[in-house]
């Protein structure tokens, strides 16, 4: 039988999807990040060329995306910790909205400083 988005279209499920996708994306990003940092020891000139490339607007925009994912994953993680370890709170959807707002705000703050 076909599985549709239908019954999953509610805030808590979207929060789960965002948390999972952001977690996977950050897990993929981290080795690349560490590799680039390692260039500081192995090949400083190459690192400088790479850092010059990252000054481009498209890379900055992509970085803002990463920052949003990181903030969203952190907010989602704190929300889940609160859900599982603190007494139940009826405002789960409000917490999800606050987490989403926090992630967007952090991304905008990054963009303000990026250019």
């Amino acid at each position, binding site marked *: *039988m076909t599985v*549709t988005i*239908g*019954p*999953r279209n*509610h805030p*808590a*499920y979207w929060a*789960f999807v965002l948390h999972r996708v952001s977690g996977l994306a950050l897990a993929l990003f981290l080795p690349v990040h560490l590799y680039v940092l390692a260039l500081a020891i192995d090949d400083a000139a190459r690192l400088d060329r790479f850092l010059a490339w990252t000054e481009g607007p498209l890379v900055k925009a992509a970085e803002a995306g990463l920052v949003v994912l990181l903030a969203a994953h952190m907010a989602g993680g704190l929300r*889940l910790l609160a*859900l*599982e*370890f603190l007494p*139940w709170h009826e405002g*789960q959807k409000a917490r999800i909205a606050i987490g989403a707002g926090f992630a967007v705000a952090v991304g905008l703050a990054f963009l303000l400083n990026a250019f």
Partner: protein
Amino acid sequence: MDAAPSPEGELTVEIWRGGADGRFRTYRVPRRRNQTVLDAVTYVQRHIDPSLAYRFACRVGVCGSCAMTVNGAPRWTCRTRVERVARRGRVRVAPLRNLPIIRDLAVDMTPFFDKWARAKGHFVPSAAGTQGFAEVAPDSPERRAADAGVECIGCGICYAVCDVVAWNPDYVGPAALNRAWTLVNDVRDGDRAGHLAAAAAGAGCHACHSHQSCAEYCPTGLNPTASIAGLKRMAFVAALKGAP
């Protein structure tokens, strides 16, 4: 039921026929005012194809036996009006997800209730209970926690909508865990630690991903996710205290 046909004329109802390898068949049903999805299914069985298998009893949202998948979402068909769910005059009715299909719209609820037993979802009398009435303060934290989940009628909607059940068939599911939570909080029960251990074992409460679809779709308005979160919390504290 209001027998007067509404101006819209006909409704196209797609109904799952056969077992797991079945398919949807299309029927045309006259529209009625205040018609429910159950009315439409019943019309098909009474007037078009008497071999259609489906389940219902009370028709008024008390028994929970008419739960089916309507346009992809699990619902009590007796409490679902056609006018609310029909898209361009069409409604698609399938059996509940995550349960073996017996035939057409009837599913085998055995795995669902077996898991209630696995989560130790039955009351265990205590010795004190035989010596008179138990006095339970209605506003005590335990009674409030139990009251919040006690109205479950076992319709299987939460079990059908839960993706964790779909991903891990061993997961006991929201209804059984919600039941366990009411018993863990029942001060009259003789084995509250046993209920907690059963609910936390294997693919029990800790397997829940907190999608909250169960709470979103429970027709009774219960919140199994809150009950499961309570079990997780209590099991964590019990583990810190060295519970087996």
